[in-house]
């Protein structure tokens, strides 16, 4: 046996040993599994807007929280703060733990809360902040310059004043800023036409049309069917579309225009004053909604979702308004 042969055997052994190193933990995990459960697939947290409030309410039913501490202790206690009746706070307060009220709740300006739950209505004074979730079975009002992070929901009207910022709002009626009853949406009128009468537009399937490049729908016109635009889409003032519209680059829904379906865009959607969209508004960039516009209806709630949502005074939405990054209520006045 030569030295060269021994070196070769040594080298081969070393190589095999190196190859076997990763097999050791693999073998151990196979023989004695430590991580072999299926991935969880529950999606309730995403689908239910008041998921966290409901879960917290259920957890409360299983324990008996202590009586509410004095206001000076709210910033320190980690236990839920439970009130058996309506509460009005006249001074600024900070609460580290969730606050639960069997009745109405009214907080003064500048309050800071992690979570709020009321069986009645909630009103938060100016510049208040909620960092996790807020839910009222009745109405919910956020005064000027409030911050509602994560989720805010209620069972009646959610009034969000100018200067407020939000992430996910959910209510049968969401009223942004001061409502001007003089601003009226015009009822759609006139006979409907096919999209194929518009330049660039071709029919792709029954009720579905496609425009290559940019597309403009004339003012005060009416169309039946759904439209896909590969560029930008301008829907003229007073135009009515009985279907869904999608544009890849951008959509402008003109003043007083009415879309009876959904509006989808990979860019920015701008819904001008007094316009109406019945179905979901889905933008991969931002959504701008101008004064007097309305999204969804009292009997047909819907969803507005985008990275950023900028809403003007006087807008009404029904259902969910979800800004993945930030939502702001802006006053033109």
């Amino acid at each position: 046996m030569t030295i060269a042969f021994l070196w070769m055997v040594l080298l081969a052994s070393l190589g095999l040993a190196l190859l076997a190193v990763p097999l050791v933990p693999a073998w151990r995990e196979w023989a004695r599994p430590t991580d072999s459960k299926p991935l969880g697939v529950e999606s309730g947290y995403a689908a239910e807007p008041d998921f966290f409030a409901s879960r917290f309410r259920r957890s409360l039913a299983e324990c008996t929280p202590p009586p509410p501490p004095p206001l000076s202790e709210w910033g320190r206690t980690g236990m839920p703060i439970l009130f058996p009746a309506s509460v009005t706070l006249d001074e600024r307060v900070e609460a580290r733990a969730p606050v639960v009220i069997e009745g109405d709740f009214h907080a003064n300006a500048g309050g800071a809360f992690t979570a709020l739950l009321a069986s009645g209505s909630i009103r938060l004074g100016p510049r208040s902040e909620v960092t996790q979730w807020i839910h009222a079975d009745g109405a919910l009002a956020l005064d000027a310059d409030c911050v509602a992070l994560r989720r805010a929901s209620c069972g009646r009207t959610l009034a969000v004043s100018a200067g407020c910022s939000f992430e996910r709002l959910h209510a049968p009626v969401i009223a942004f800023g001061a409502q001007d009853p003089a601003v009226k949406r015009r009822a759609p009128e006139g006979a409907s036409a096919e999209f194929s009468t518009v330049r660039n537009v071709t029919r792709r399937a029954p009720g579905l049309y496609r425009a290559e490049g940019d597309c403009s729908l004339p003012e005060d016109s009416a169309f039946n069917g759904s439209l896909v635009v590969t560029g930008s889409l301008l829907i003229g003032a007073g135009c009515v579309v009985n279907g869904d519209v999608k544009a890849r680059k951008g959509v402008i829904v003109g003043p007083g225009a009415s879309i009876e379906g959904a509006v989808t865009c990979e860019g920015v959607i701008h819904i001008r004053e007094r316009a109406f969209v019945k179905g979901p508004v889905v933008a991969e960039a931002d959504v701008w909604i101008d004064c007097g516009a309305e999204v969804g209806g009292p009997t047909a709630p819907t969803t507005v979702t985008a990275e950023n949502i900028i809403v003007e005074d006087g807008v009404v939405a029904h259902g969910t308004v979800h800004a993945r990054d930030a939502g702001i209520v802006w006053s033109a006045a």
Partner: protein
Amino acid sequence: MLLSWNSDPLVMILAAALAAIVAIMVAYALRHFLFSLQRLFGKQRHPYLDIDVADWPCVTVFIPARNEERVIRGCLDAMLDSDYPKDRLRIVPIDDRSTDGTGAILEDYASRYAGRVLPFRRTGGKCGKSAALSDALHAAVGEIVMVFDADYVPNRGLLKQLAAPFFDPEVGAVMGRVVPGNVSRTLLTRLLDLERSAGYQVDQQARMNLRLVPQYGGTVGGIRRSAMEAVGGWDDTMLAEDTDITFRLLLNGWKTVYTNRSECHEEVPEEWPVRVRQVKRWARGHNQVLWRYWYAFLTSRFVDLRERVDGIMLLCVFLMPSLLLAGWLLVVCLYFLGASALLLFFMPALALMSYATLGNFAAFFEIVIAVLLDGNRARIRLLPLNLLGFIVSMFSICSATVAQVADRVTGRVLVWDKTARYRAAKG
């Protein structure tokens, strides 16, 4: 030793072929790298996930079932428990000539949930899921058709999540994420869990993020009926009806959307022979689609450049194992032809890129990223054992490809092969 075209033409031709194979493998490996990096650092697209309230469209859920008495109850119960508006949901289990108790179970559900569960019975016609769905299509109501295999158990909110993208009129099909539910059963199920994680969590979602070609997977998904009818409906001659639909929709202007957070448990094969049959069926079906649509796809005016590149790479993915074997054969030939100097360059590249490209469908770095994103850290220790799955898949796909070529020559008809079920019967 210096080689030249004049002195060694055969060696140079073989070397050029090997170089081409290595280049293709590198291209696929780079694609997987790109997907992995995109999932880690890129912008994630879930545009429709946040639609939680809407005027939901009418939906028909098809559940193709052939001898599914062990699992069909679980699927039906989950469908009936869905939070989708009951008056907008029709559940149509398709009894495809079952010879076990499936028919009686469906009768029972139809009588207990009259108007909600409406079984469709097939007593003749071609075998296979495409044929069953094609026959049942006229029983659908509404614009959206969803398809679930009988062993799938959707959670309450899944149907809404899958219906939401259809508010976008450009969306022709929607695909959710398939998650193995029987992970702990055997080594194979654990390896398939890793593979599925990478395939969906990284590969499909990256393609969605990059606006490439997410694939409709034939189950846990939905299809727009008018789009389906416009492209000719389900084709019962296709073995991979899911890939077929993805490409027919795409080359006619409709998009397929992947929703990574719309997850549903499935049963993966627990035995290697079952897995081999499944892979062979996928390979043959996929190659069938490649053969039929590659030219139409390359020339479609509705497909942009990056969709075209990704789509062709996706279509050719089941040709890669054969190409890889051809590469190894070329290496041996070149060695015996005295071109070992060339092999010093090509062999390591081929070895590295072959697994990086094919690593049991989901390349190994995609598996690592997927496991990281899913938060299941310890199971990644099994990664080296994935070599076993890689080798089995490679030879299964190669044999399927060879058999497919032989079938074309002899004129033999492709036959659909149902995947076995393992779950104990419920009730």
